[in-house]
């Protein structure tokens, strides 16, 4: 579903990704771990098409298409979703209106009929129930005045509505206490399916106690230096990143 080959990317003049390879199959959950400054978030941003990064080499294919050629919205239409590490506040933009616009834009791009207000509301209520979320979420402006935990939950809620084929969760565990983490993890688990792949970008093993990955990769200095099963995460928890030669970047 996603094939990253020899990906190199710069921020300004600085090379952050230095030839990264990654293969993700349908329905798989991959954790990408690594110390600060290893390029984890850069990878998430480059995949989602954020400005400010220059790809200098390699390729990314998603669902048979050259992903790097596409605008961010076109990537979303193909089924890519990024749960932000820092969800952006949109004062004055109503959450329901926002999600309806997003879902219908995606449906339209796929040649599916747009949902009317009634069907959309039904869908929202259903997803709120699955994720055990409060429906006050629907009336509020997107992320505006939300607590850290609420923002992360809102990301998972968006993911539930938009039903992506590949979700990238960028440090979704950061800044969450254990209860909030559990709620978010339960949400992600509820959305796991043989059709949906997930990339968990995280610094800590903690999240992986709640969301069991099929594969774990260690990213250091812009490259994947080790891949394995979920036991690799436990090893990292024990020994830190140092034994792999992956120190925290200066």
């Amino acid at each position, binding site marked *: 579903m996603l094939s990253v080959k020899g990906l190199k990317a710069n921020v300004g003049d600085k090379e952050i990704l230095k030839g990264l390879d990654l293969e993700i199959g349908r329905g798989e959950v991959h954790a990408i771990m690594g110390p600060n400054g290893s390029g984890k978030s850069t990878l998430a941003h480059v995949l*989602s*098409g*954020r*400005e400010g990064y220059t790809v200098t080499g390699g390729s990314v294919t998603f669902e048979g298409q050259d992903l790097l050629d596409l*605008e*961010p*919205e076109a*990537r*979303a*239409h193909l089924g890519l*979703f*990024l749960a*932000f590490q820092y*969800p*952006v506040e*949109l*004062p*004055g*933009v109503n959450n329901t*209106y*926002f*999600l309806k*616009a*997003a*879902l219908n*834009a*995606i449906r339209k*791009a796929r040649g599916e009929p747009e949902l009317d207000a009634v069907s959309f509301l039904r869908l929202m209520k259903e997803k709120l129930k699955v994720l055990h979320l409060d429906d006050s979420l629907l009336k509020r*402006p997107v992320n505006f005045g939300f607590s850290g935990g609420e923002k992360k939950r809102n990301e998972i809620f*968006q993911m539930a509505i*938009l039903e992506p084929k590949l979700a990238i969760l960028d440090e979704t565990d950061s800044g969450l206490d254990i209860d909030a983490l559990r709620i978010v993890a339960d949400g992600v688990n509820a959305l796991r399916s043989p059709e949906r792949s997930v990339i968990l970008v995280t610094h800590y093993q903690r999240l992986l106690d709640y969301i069991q990955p099929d594969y774990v990769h260690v990213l250091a200095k812009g490259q994947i230096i080790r891949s394995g099963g979920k036991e690799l995460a436990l090893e990292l928890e024990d020994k830190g990143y140092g034994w792999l030669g992956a120190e925290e970047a200066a």
Partner: protein
Amino acid sequence: MNATPGNGFAPWLADDGPAADTGLAWLDSRRAQARAQVRDQGIPTNKQEAWRYTSLTRLLEQGFTPTAKAATPLEPRDLEPLLVPGLEAYRVVLVNGRFVPGLSDLQHLPAGLRVGGLAQILKSDPDALKDRLNGVAGEAQHLFAALNTAGLDDGVVVLLERGAQVERPIELIHLSVGMDEPRVAQPRHVVALEAGAQASLIERYVSLGEALYCTNSVLELSLGRDAVLKHQRIQTESANAFHIAGLYLSLGAGSRYQCVNVGLGASWARTDLNVRFAGEHAECDLQGLYLAGDRQLMDFHLDVDHRLPQCSSRENFKGILYGKGRAVFDGRVYVAKDAQRTDAAMSNRNLLLSEGAEIDTKPQLEINADDVKCSHGTTVGQIEPEQLFYLRSRGISAPLARRMLCLGFAGEILDCLTPEALRDQVAEQVGSRLEQAPID
């Protein structure tokens, strides 16, 4: 002002012009005085602070003629596309500045409410207006207020008696219809709420077609003790029109006034809001939203005069500018020496969507008392790339994402509009304006 050819307002300034003889001596003398004042003052230039950023050249180049006595015959169904869907209101309609009873809906007015055409009332009951006309505006120094006095021939009068509380809004529709030559309409509106009266006034400037014309309106408004008025002004004139509005407000003790201004239309629009507190403990809340695109100027001047203690005022204006659109915000809050415990807060925030757009913003506080709470703030910014990316990453196209963010920015003001039908209509108008906006 010299009555040179090409001076579009010359017809009103001749002592033997169309407006010289009204049959009312007091009105004739006020008009003669206004004519003399305009002639003495001359045309303001950009050396005068009030006109520093706004040029009158293009306006005065137009060869306007006064609106003919007979308005274009229209039927109620012509008005339908311009109505707010589902809005139930006492409706008073002017066409090209003249009251048209056949288009208005003034039946079953509740006790204590009088709504009618100014010209009619000047004929039937001039004494009702003698003290009210110029009662608030006084001998206004403003060029266009004086021109309005010199040329006024019709308008709307709304009078609420002591304690009258009217639930249903009073809707004033000023409709302009293109004529074979550019016309100027100079409606004069008089609104007075006696002590304890409460009402809601919706003032809308609309047009059929995209003709070139000029509206120079003056509204004089007085609120008696503890009166409450919500006033909403929606300006959606033709894209080629000139729109000038002077509002003169006198707020009595304990009265509460809210004005929500929306400026979307006209190629050149100037609005002056002059607020004078006439009693203590009065509250004034001025909200505003304006859009300006290519070849469009939107100019708001606020002058809030805290001459008495313990009054509060809020001035909150937001602008969205795109293309080569220009706007001016000049807000002055004056606090007199004795106006202790004044509470005033002014804010002007602007979103610029293009390199070519321009805003000249000048909030001023002039405080002469020492026990006051006053603040002002101004921002000029662009759409945040982070916000744009967030929306796009959810599948929303860049143009729609920009529109959503602009509407989000405008939402604070739009949400002041009531009832919801009016809010929705204006939000849609703002949205469709933004849809046409060339955004770079």
